[in-house]
């Protein structure tokens, strides 16, 4: 049973990824991305990370991809990119080699076993109690500072986004960077 879930989700993930990369139309890419995200969420559930699966769907698929779609619409959807042509020399061959290299390296590394030291540094993943309880436990005790910093980061991000994206008749950011 687990294998079926794994294979199905895996196919969804990889197909979606290929779709993102190969689609000419940005909206198609965004939809393929959604498929990938769903696949990943399923794989989270299969690994007993229920809370994260939920957050993945709500935040990633639900907010981030929507944000992508907003911007795609804002910048105009009619034009598709010419995937065939590549103006930069040697970009494609080296890119393929680099990508393949990364994958191969990881595969090779995955066959070794490194023991890093103490187990359960932050607490056991299985055992009694729900997943969200355990997560909240370590989040609000051990990693409280990081949690608070992350919230500050979110505020900064919002402020930055507002500043960057507004129309400014007097000074501010202009779209003069493009050469």
């Amino acid at each position, binding site marked *: 049973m*687990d*294998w079926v879930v794994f294979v199905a989700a895996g196919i969804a993930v*990889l197909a979606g*990824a290929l779709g*993102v*990369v190969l689609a000419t139309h940005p909206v198609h890419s965004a939809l393929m991305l959604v498929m990938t995200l769903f696949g*990943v969420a399923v*794989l*989270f559930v299969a*690994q007993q*990370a229920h*809370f*994260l699966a939920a*957050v*993945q769907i709500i*935040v*990633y698929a639900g*907010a981030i991809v929507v*944000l*992508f779609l907003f911007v795609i619409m*804002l*910048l*105009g959807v*009619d034009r598709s*990119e010419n995937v065939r042509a590549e103006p*930069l020399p040697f*970009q494609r061959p*080296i*890119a*393929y080699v680099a*990508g*393949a290299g990364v*994958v191969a390296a*990881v*595969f090779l590394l*995955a066959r070794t076993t490194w023991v890093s030291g103490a*187990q*359960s*540094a*932050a*607490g*056991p*993943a299985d055992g009694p109690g729900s997943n969200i309880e*355990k997560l909240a436990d*370590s*989040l609000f005790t051990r*990693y409280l500072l990081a949690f608070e910093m*992350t919230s500050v*980061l*979110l505020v900064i*991000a*919002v402020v*930055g*986004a*507002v500043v*960057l*994206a507004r129309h400014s008749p007097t000074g501010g950011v202009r*779209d003069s960077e*493009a*050469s």
Partner: protein
Amino acid sequence: MSVPGAWYLGLAAMLFGIGAIGLLIRRNVLIMFMCVELMLNAVNLTFVTFARMLNDIGGQVVVFFVLVVAAAEVVVGLAIIVSIFRRRADATADDISLLKG
């Protein structure tokens, strides 16, 4: 019978590779951004797998933070893209080459 962790790691590796190649090949800035998201997801998957393999909730905590930061990053990144490529539909990453030596 549970799927061994190594399979998940392999899957995550392939997802990462696809995302990397896509980032290097595509010219449309938004699609490049989406490939970055693919890579981040691959990393998330890896962390969760390790959380299970090593029986440590810390892996999932990391994923939590990665998620949050990825969201913030997307926000700011898209804002930048909007400000640079405002109302120019044919904008590609190759248009910005002021750093040319």
